[in-house]
């Protein structure tokens, strides 16, 4: 197992290098840079000043050299300087990523708990009214555009009925401490969490239902029933445990999403998370920030892939890693 992990890690080195090249090229070949970006565009810079600035930021060097420089710094944990915030990229990410994490972690817990309950019940009562309803709603949830759902909820609960705030993470003008602060953040979190949970719950429910349906047809379930076990024990102890196996992969693959932020939802609810910051970074051509963030997520995704395979091997002894 240890050898397997080492081998997988080694194998992923070329992948991450490839990803870094693609990311670097996408942002370097993009026309326009921080000097021509919107917020300096208003200032009338002379050509000489522009050239000076480009030299200062190292934007006038040939591409391979720039890539080498960037990667060299990245390997030392230095992702460069964010133009927009005038701080190191790592600091910017550290400041905002935990706000995104708070949101995504809450969603992940809610999503998996609800999907488990709904998926299991819908599978146990296959073809019932509840099951058909779930099947239809799952399709709706999977097809909702994130921004439309977010806007609808915002309109309904923040504009028409002023139950929840319009956006942000804390109330402006007050400085709550302790418990009050936590409650205030929770109050601001409600709508974005609802949006993201509704969006993600469809796919997960579908998986739960599918794997449960497969498991309850197995012989050992019939045996468990024949032994005279209570249906509750059969379903939750014998069936659910086995149904969870393939879901480990799905779960591991969702972990990088905890740090990726939700670009559109955060923007709609004005949530100060990493997703909104990246979008601002994009509009302002803050490429070091975008590149650093995208590379980190790519790296986490590759790790999550390995984690998924390893966990699956641990949980299911029938799978042997060589």
């Amino acid at each position, binding site marked *: 197992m240890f050898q397997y992990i080492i081998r997988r890690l080694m194998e992923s080195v070329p992948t991450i290098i490839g*990803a870094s090249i693609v990311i670097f090229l996408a942002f370097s070949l*993009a026309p326009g840079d921080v000097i021509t970006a919107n917020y300096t565009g208003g200032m009338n810079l002379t050509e000489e000043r522009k050239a000076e600035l480009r030299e200062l930021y190292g934007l006038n060097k040939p591409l391979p050299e720039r890539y080498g420089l960037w990667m060299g710094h990245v390997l030392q944990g230095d992702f460069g300087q964010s133009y927009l915030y005038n701080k190191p990229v790592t600091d910017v990410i550290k400041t905002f990523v935990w706000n995104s994490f708070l949101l995504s972690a809450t969603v992940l817990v809610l999503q998996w708990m609800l999907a488990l309950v709904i998926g299991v019940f819908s599978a146990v009562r296959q073809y019932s009214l509840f099951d058909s309803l779930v099947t239809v709603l799952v399709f709706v949830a999977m097809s909702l*555009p994130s921004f439309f759902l977010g806007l*609808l909820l915002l309109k309904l609960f923040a504009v028409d009925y002023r139950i929840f705030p319009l956006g942000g993470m804390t109330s402006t003008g007050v400085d709550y401490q302790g418990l009050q602060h936590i409650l205030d953040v929770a109050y601001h979190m409600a709508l974005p969490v609802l949006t993201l949970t509704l969006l993600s719950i469809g796919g997960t429910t579908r998986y739960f239902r599918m794997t449960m349906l497969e498991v309850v047809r197995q012989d050992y379930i019939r045996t468990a029933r024949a032994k005279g076990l209570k249906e509750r024990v059969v379903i939750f102890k014998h069936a659910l445990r086995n149904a969870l196996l393939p879901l480990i992969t799905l779960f591991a693959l969702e972990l990088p999403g905890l740090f990726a932020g939700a*670009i559109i939802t955060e923007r709609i609810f004005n949530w100060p998370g990493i997703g909104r910051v*990246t979008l601002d970074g*994009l509009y302002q051509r803050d490429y070091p920030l975008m590149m650093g963030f995208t590379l980190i997520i790519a790296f986490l995704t590759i790790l999550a892939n390995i984690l998924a395979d390893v966990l699956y091997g641990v949980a299911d002894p029938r799978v042997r890693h060589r």
Partner: protein
Amino acid sequence: MTIATESKVRAVKRKADSPWKSAWRRFIRNPMAIAALTMLTVIVLFSFVGPFFSPYKDARITVKNANQPPSAEHWLGTDNLGRDVVLRLMQAGQISLLVGLMATGVILLLGGTIGLVSGFYGGWVDSIFMRFADIMFAIPTLPILITFGAILSDLKFPPDRRIYLVMLIIGLISWMGLSRLVRSQVLSLKEQEFMLAAEALGLRDRRKLFAHLLPNIIPIMIVSGTLGVAGAILLESALSFLGLGVIPPTPSWGQMLSAANNMVDFSKRPWLWIPPGVMILITVVSINVIGDALRDAFDPKMKR
């Protein structure tokens, strides 16, 4: 006697339906699929035929009619330039559906070819392509998509041609799933006897690829393609909503929804952005249901 034999022969014939025919039969027996297909047909007709029946199709832009709420003349009101929202929805539908279809074309072409070639030739060709797929999979979709969108904005492409680039970009970042599916299918097909026969007959690679392997992967391509259209429509709408995809004067549903970025339009004029959102939702749900039903139809083992 003869009649009896004849009917027997006929019965035997009927049993041996082609896989296509039996898939189709399973498909139309699925009530949800039929409902979705009907819904989608209505949307396509609404978008492509509807404009001919709109009384506003030749209307000039008259700003004095701007921002009217829904009324008997304008069922869904008018936008900030006094254009009829229903007509705008139809025109936007043409663009959104077209972008979805064309982007899927790119996905099928790229993903299908790469998967077919990787699976068939194996070796270093396979390693390179699949490693590249891994790389593309690792890069998060939305950041890279909006970056390409921003690049488009900087290139100052004429708005009417921009949609072609949007299609291409969406295709370029979503072909990997299909290529993996096709590759694994080809790998398992290669082990089957008919491929051994093809080998024994000394058929050329081209013939093996196009005459023997391709027909067998078409069902996956159809299912993935259908679901791909839904994904592409969603991606396009997200991109256009952020102002980085289709831009005015070309309408698309996502672009119409970006009206909601304006606080006044958002809170006071819901008729500008709720209808396009509902259109996206209905379209994508229908396509997803159809894709799912097609998967069940082609692969009866999967079904329940």
